[in-house]
């Protein structure tokens, strides 16, 4: 048996689903960030696998830019989390919901 493209895509899909379940289920902002990282990593696996099996470098390029975007997202997001924690003393989304419609 040879590991093909679909193997990698299935693993990537499973990891992406784990991340999506985390985004839907968690109520803590830090945990939401973790779940986002999981989803970004799943997409990176898919890009690298497609790049390998189609013998094309474009997938790897996109993976690099995703990593750069994830790094800057974490930098800004953690700054915002620290400000929120200073202001409210909690990172729970239910505590932070101040705009009641």
């Amino acid at each position, binding site marked *: *048996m040879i590991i093909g493209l679909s193997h990698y895509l299935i693993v990537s*899909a499973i*990891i992406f689903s784990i991340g999506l379940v985390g985004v839907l*289920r968690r109520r803590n902002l830090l945990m939401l960030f973790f779940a986002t*990282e999981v989803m970004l990593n799943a997409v990176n696996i898919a890009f*690298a696998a497609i*790049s390998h099996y189609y013998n094309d470098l474009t997938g790897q390029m996109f993976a690099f830019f995703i990593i*750069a975007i994830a790094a800057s997202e974490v930098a*800004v997001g953690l700054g915002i989390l*620290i400000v929120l924690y200073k202001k409210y003393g909690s990172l729970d989304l239910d505590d932070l919901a101040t705009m009641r419609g």
Partner: protein
Amino acid sequence: MYEIVAFYLFSALTIGLFSITVLSKNVLYAMTALASGMVLISGFFFLLGADFLGVVQLIVYVGAVIALYAFAMMFFDATRDIKEKNTNSALVFFLGGMSALVLVLMFAAPIFSENIQALYPMHEGVGNAQDVGIVLFTKYLVPFEVAALMLLVAMISGIMLAGKKMDQSLTEDVSADDEIMTVKDEK
């Protein structure tokens, strides 16, 4: 044979570790599982022949992003378990799985078409890092520079957001600081 064993080992471990990340109640456990899962994902990249991407994954994700999370963890109370009220988690699991499946099918559909041609094909006998460098600095130079600018903006905004009121303690009581100050003044 070696590739098959490595692939299944990496996938089982990665899925398990990321499940811990998503389902754990303790922030420290979640962060540790995330870090080790990212190391294993770089193993996937090495398996796929994307050496440079694997190294970047190790340096940027495991080195920088997780270290940043660890630093931010000092501001939050990491030892306390997170209490969340979950409303009907079985429904959330079902909806999450179904919507992920729909997304994956949506994005995977064009892959199975036949007329995909390599835009920037890999060269035989050239290392992956060299190949990536040539394409990155010729075809993707403008996005590369824009990404550098974006990282600069993110760095400045991170410093600005986190650096305000750094002299105030978050976790300890303010009165403790006042006591220290009064003791100093009396001396």
